[in-house]
């Protein structure tokens, strides 16, 4: 039975073990093999370590989890069952660190954070 993973079908048949993908071995959802291929083909360095691809996949998955979790909460707060670009914008701009990371990024069709400048508000007489 051919299965996903680097090991050959003959190896799995001989050993009796089902071959696992590298993502399954590391307990990740993001594709370690694809990320390894991207790193090798785009000439970032002459050699790429195997642990480097696992580490990078884990970091990317953590960041995706972080954004999707908060965006899902924002969607639920707005009584929506689907994340739209506005929810991602509110997620990113309200979180200090994500805002720093995506400071120079424009999110399409997302609007702005509601903010009124103090000088544009009515003068409040303080007794």
């Amino acid at each position: 039975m051919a299965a996903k993973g680097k090991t050959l079908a003959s190896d799995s048949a001989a050993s009796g073990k089902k071959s696992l993908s590298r993502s399954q071995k590391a307990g990740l959802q993001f594709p370690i093999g694809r990320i390894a291929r991207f790193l090798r083909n785009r000439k970032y360095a002459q050699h790429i370590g195997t642990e480097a691809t696992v580490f990078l996949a884990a970091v990317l998955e953590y960041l995706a989890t972080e954004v999707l979790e908060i965006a899902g909460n924002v969607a639920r707060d707005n009584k929506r069952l689907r994340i739209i670009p506005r929810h991602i914008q509110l997620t990113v701009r309200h979180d200090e660190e994500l805002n720093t990371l995506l400071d120079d990024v424009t999110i399409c069709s997302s609007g702005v954070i509601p903010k009124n400048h103090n000088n544009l508000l009515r003068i409040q007489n303080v007794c």
Partner: protein
Amino acid sequence: MAPKAEKKPHTPAAEKAPAEKKPKAGKKLPKDAAGDKKKKRAKKSIETYKIYIFKVLKQVHPDIGISSKSMGIMNSFINDIFEKLAQEASRLSRINKKPTITSREIQTAVRLVLPGELAKHAVSEGTKAVTKFTSA
């Protein structure tokens, strides 16, 4: 007679036009026939992170969906962070005169690129994944 005289120079041009058209049509026909005989060209597959982002979403919020534009935004976000981390790791390996990008370079790149607590959590997630991978 003038119109007849005028027609004469036109007719060779008119003859030329269909004559020119004929080889074109002639050239087209076998192509069309070949195109009809051949199956439609298989669409070139474009690789994205979309299915993996969807899997992560279902882990975090099983009942929440995501629009296609938002999925595009998330895909672009992942590609952008990948590029930033890979470029930084490449620069680190070059500065240290090492031809290899190891997990050490990626870890340092994460500490340089990601701000504050995000970097700490990302490094711990990466270390946990590497430990699980090597023990498996």
